[in-house]
């Protein structure tokens, strides 16, 4: 280390001692699956004890390697950054500035829950790769560390760790509502239609049905598993208000608790699927800057609220954005129907000193909100067909990467140019506010 240690009195802490076991256990499960699969094959079949012993040996080695790496991994939280040192052969020393912290998530995988372990993931602006998730900590440590990091990232109370349960619950999504909302989702309806069609075919001719079975399965499987996954991840969705922002807790098997600090939201989307309209339900999604630290597979989901009555949804959106939203009232000219025949009725824009609101949608109505203070750049585009109709689209780009919000499509050409001017003026003012 070349720099002098600014806070030498802080000790390096270790991850939870059960970490190597849990990691090794995961490895063992994967191996067991492979071995199990192999033993079903007839052609090459080593005796069961050979493959079993091999699996055990490899797992033992993995646990040993895990132990060594656990010994060499340490973390500590200073006033301004989280420091993580790790690596056996190649040492890696990570410094995550807390001022850049966008969100923190505590993930508890099923096995980890049994053992009382949790993983801490960080979201930082512009980090393309994994931001050294801390896996695994004891649950209480994880929650305490998160609370301390969030408190420091907000610049409040540098000492005295915030009690982890200082949260005021705002919304709990009842399981019944979640199930109903999923049953009324577009993909469920689609699945139902496919299955009914299949059954009718089967009733008429078994041969055709058999031939079509593979195709049907390949359609049903991804849609079905997506629905099941949504149920598992969004089960027991709870939104609570804490000192520095909102906290979302959710999940049936793996539970996740993520925090959205105030003023870090890059965009909000309110979706109203067609079949939910009778119940007046909406789904609210948010986007923060940066990638999910875990990267790869399960990045942080965008849901702020999977399903809720409209009033509640808009209130929560307003809460997360700071102020009430302006209504989107400026419609597109009638001639836009030649360019967007299905959605032109829903295309509208609303603007005030803080937010840009756009609506769109063919079947579901989508309302997108971009805080003007978060706008990175503004673009105007006009394709050949649009120009013939004297239309143009205006895009306000923010740093969020999961939701594509901020597109006001098919406005009148002159109005679009004015909108660009107005947006850049207002965004400049909002940035300085």
């Amino acid at each position: 280390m070349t720099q002098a240690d600014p806070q030498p009195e802080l000790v390096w802490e270790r991850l939870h001692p059960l970490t190597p076991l849990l990691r090794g256990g995961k490895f063992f499960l994967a191996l067991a699956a492979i071995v199990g699969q192999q033993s079903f094959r007839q052609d090459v079949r080593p005796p069961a004890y050979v493959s079993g012993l091999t699996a055990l040996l490899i797992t033992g080695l993995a646990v040993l390697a895990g132990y060594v790496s656990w010994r060499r991994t340490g973390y500590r939280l200073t006033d301004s950054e989280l420091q993580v040192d790790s690596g056996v052969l190649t040492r890696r020393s990570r410094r995550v500035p807390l001022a850049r912290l966008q969100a923190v998530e505590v993930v508890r995988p099923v096995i980890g829950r049994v053992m009382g372990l949790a993983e801490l993931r960080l979201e930082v602006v512009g980090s393309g790769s994994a931001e050294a998730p801390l896996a695994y900590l004891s649950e209480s440590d994880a929650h305490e560390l998160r609370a301390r990091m969030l408190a420091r990232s907000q610049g409040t109370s540098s000492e005295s760790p915030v009690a982890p349960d200082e949260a005021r619950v705002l919304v709990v999504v009842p399981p019944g509502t979640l199930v109903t909302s999923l049953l009324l989702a577009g993909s469920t309806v689609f699945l139902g239609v496919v299955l009914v069609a299949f059954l009718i075919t089967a009733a008429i001719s078994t041969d055709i049905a058999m031939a079509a079975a593979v195709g049907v399965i390949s359609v049903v499987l991804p849609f079905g598993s997506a629905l099941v996954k949504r149920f598992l991840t969004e089960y027991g969705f709870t939104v609570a208000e804490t000192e520095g922002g909102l906290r979302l807790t959710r999940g049936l098997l793996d539970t996740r608790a993520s925090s959205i600090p105030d003023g870090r939201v890059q965009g909000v989307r309110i979706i109203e699927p067609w079949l939910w309209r009778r119940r007046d339900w909406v789904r609210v999604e948010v986007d923060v800057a940066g990638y999910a630290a875990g990267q790869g597979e399960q990045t942080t989901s965008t849901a702020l609220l999977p399903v809720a009555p409209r009033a509640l949804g808009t209130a929560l959106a307003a809460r997360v954005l700071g102020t009430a939203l302006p209504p989107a009232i400026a419609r597109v000219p009638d001639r836009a129907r030649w360019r967007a025949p299905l959605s032109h009725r829903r295309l509208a824009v609303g603007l005030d000193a803080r937010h840009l609101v756009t609506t769109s949608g063919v079947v579901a109505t989508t309302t997108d909100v971009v805080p003007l203070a978060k706008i990175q750049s503004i673009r105007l585009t006009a394709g050949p067909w649009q120009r013939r109709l004297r239309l143009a689209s205006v895009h306000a780009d923010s740093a969020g990467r999961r939701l594509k919000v901020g597109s006001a499509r098919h406005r009148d050409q002159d109005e679009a140019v004015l909108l660009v001017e107005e947006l850049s003026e207002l965004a400049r003012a909002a940035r300085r506010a």
Partner: protein
Amino acid sequence: MTELTWLRPDRGLLRLRRLECLLYLGLPLTGVSAVIAYVAGSAAGVGAALLTVGLVGLALTAVERRFHAWGYAEREDDLLVRRGALVRRLSVVPYGRMQYVDVTAGPLDRRLGLARVTLHTAAAASDASIPGLLAAEATRLRDRLAALGEARAAGL
């Protein structure tokens, strides 16, 4: 937008684009026509040659129109970049939002003394990039943007 002065890429960009057109479109098509003439007789060869000339001509006009569509203007607080002949685009990037500036020049660009200046913001969709600047102008623009960006930097 009254006293706005639009600056344009150097004329060399047009030369560069024409060169690329001939190199990457004209040359292969000529080769293909020659093969066609050899295999399928002179009538087919003449047809292919005519088609080649037509396509290259079309590409050259497109290149010309796109060159004339390029423009950029430095305002007090933001940079404007306009481009595109078929799909017209205008980008407004506030200096304070700039994360970094790139100056890039490929082998052909360097031959002609040209460079491209690209502005990067935290948003993936921002696409403010100006090709075909003379090296001196590219350096000037880069330094000016970097200085302005530093002066007006804002948090995310």
